[in-house]
């Protein structure tokens, strides 16, 4: 941050002009970022007549939640007209175990890699790290076959497995980078006192971990909830996660296009991650930037 005046700070007038310029730019960008949210919320509250007759940017005449109710419990997705509700719970049933499993496995793997360096640990870490960046297209075909062999195609269990495995690379990276900052002396002292691998993990390391656990949980939840590729590739019909069901709802082209229902569906589908962002935004940002910025 620059401590002196923001723009050429020789006089009140030019300083004021500079501040105006900065604020104008900031506000214009804020409007650009908020425009879609405003349009989506606004449209979801209008009825079809109002949508066709009015302007995209006009405020709705009244708060009308019919489209929300319809999207949640009545809209047709494929041939079933159940609304998004069952798919919402599919996503919950998939995300919760996958988040917990991948976070726990990432924690203990990261702990082993940093605090109990063994021969080859760096190679193991490098291979895990590259796993973060592999484009998933290169694994979906074998994965589809493997799920078939394991007889868990088209089930929540299949998706839990997929998300746990492919989330593991990220969670390991998070925990590894966090545990590197915890002094080794702590572990050494405990070892001298006779504490073993697991005792140290559960008594010393885990109690120090809540900040990074929160990051990992938020990151994994957002990734898994927002996933489309795996859901679309490995499930059909009633077992689909909400992201796939929402897309089907919007892109099915039978009958009159109900834009208000589409927008309400989008909001319902996005609500959990937005909520997480509002409640724990700080940790969300930390997750985003973890491992990508050094120093």
């Amino acid at each position, binding site marked *: 941050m*620059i401590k002196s005046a923001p723009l050429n700070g020789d006089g009140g007038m030019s300083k004021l002009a500079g501040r105006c310029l900065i604020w104008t*730019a900031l506000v214009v960008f804020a409007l650009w970022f908020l425009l879609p949210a405003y349009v989506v919320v606004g449209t979801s509250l209008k009825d079809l007549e109002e949508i066709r007759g009015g302007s995209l940017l006009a405020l709705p005449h009244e708060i009308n939640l019919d489209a929300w109710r319809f999207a949640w419990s009545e809209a047709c997705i494929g041939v079933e007209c159940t609304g998004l509700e069952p798919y919402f719970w599919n996503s919950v049933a998939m995300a919760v175990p996958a988040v917990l499993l991948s976070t726990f496995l990432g924690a203990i793997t990261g*702990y082993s890699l940093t605090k109990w360096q063994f021969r080859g640990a760096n190679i193991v870490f490098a291979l895990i790290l590259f796993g973060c960046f592999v484009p998933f297209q*290169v694994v979906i075909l074998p994965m589809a076959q493997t799920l078939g062999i394991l007889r868990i195609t088209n089930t929540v269990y299949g998706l839990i497995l997929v998300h746990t495995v492919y989330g593991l690379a990220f969670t390991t990276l998070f925990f590894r980078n966090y545990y590197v900052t915890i002094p080794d002396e702590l572990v050494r002292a405990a070892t001298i006192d006779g504490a073993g691998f697991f005792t140290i993990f559960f008594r010393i390391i885990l109690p120090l971990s809540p900040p990074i656990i929160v990051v990992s949980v938020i990151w994994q939840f957002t990734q898994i909830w927002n996933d489309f590729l795996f859901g679309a590739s490995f499930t059909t019909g009633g077992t689909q996660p909400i992201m796939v069901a929402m897309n089907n709802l919007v892109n099915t082209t039978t009958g009159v296009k109900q834009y208000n229902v589409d927008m309400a569906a989008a909001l319902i589908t996005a609500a959990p*991650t*937005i909520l997480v962002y509002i409640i724990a935004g700080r940790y969300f940002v930390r997750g*985003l930037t973890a491992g990508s910025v050094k120093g």
Partner: protein
Amino acid sequence: MARPSAGGSWRLDRLIPQIVVSPGFLAILLFVYGFILWTGYVSMTKSRMLPKYDFAGLIQYERLFQMDRWNVAINNLFVFGVLFILVSIVIGCLLAVLLDQKIRAEGFIRTVYLYPMAISFIITGTAWKWIMNPSLGLETVVRSWGWESFSFGWTVDQDLAVYALVMAAVWQSSGFVMALFLSALRSVDQDIIKAASLDGATPFRIYTRIILPSMRPVFMSAVVILSHLAIKSFDLVVALTGGGPGYASTLPANFMYEMTFRRNEIGVGAASAMVMLATVAAIMVPYLYSELRGQKHD
């Protein structure tokens, strides 16, 4: 590093870390690297509707590069990738510098800029598709303001659909770039800046000569992460343009999905996935190599 000294049941004690790492590591070895080999092999067979396992050389790659759809996808990836990365970085960087000027409502504004990152590309695509809807969206709004000839039918225009993708993707990701740059800006050595401003350097010069050049590693990170995002882009296309009109806005990830799951061309699908992997690896491997090597010197 804590190396537990031998003592007690030393043999097992020493193996515990390896044993604990192995389930996760084996899972990644199998589900990532094993599957890469698997896909690689399938890409060299005549697989169509079902995978076949007799070796056939590079015929699928030959077929792949003769397909117009694939060449369109590659072209699109180039246009989309370059624009997406450039514009995201320019906007993200600008936003970070603007927010760095002791803005009172910084926390709130940052929240606004970054919220798209919490939302999936499917939702982003759906929202922008609605805004860019030619008959009801922004086009109608601007025309009602009196600019009768204004047109904004990007998503349904063969030549412009890719730019619609860029626009939505930039909207989604520039807040992330801002967050990267802002945290880097905050860690620039304040003493150098103070010294420079005592010497009479203007804030503009300080930014362009001292601060931004010192952020080269962050530029690198941003380019790498954004290019990885671009190569993986799939959902946004599905939700915003459906790859259309025709296949004018299809990207390699969409091509792969289409071939593998819709058109019974598993071999071509596998070959296209391998090309995508090679592209990612060409960017990631040198980057990760230098990062990991750098860490050891810290």
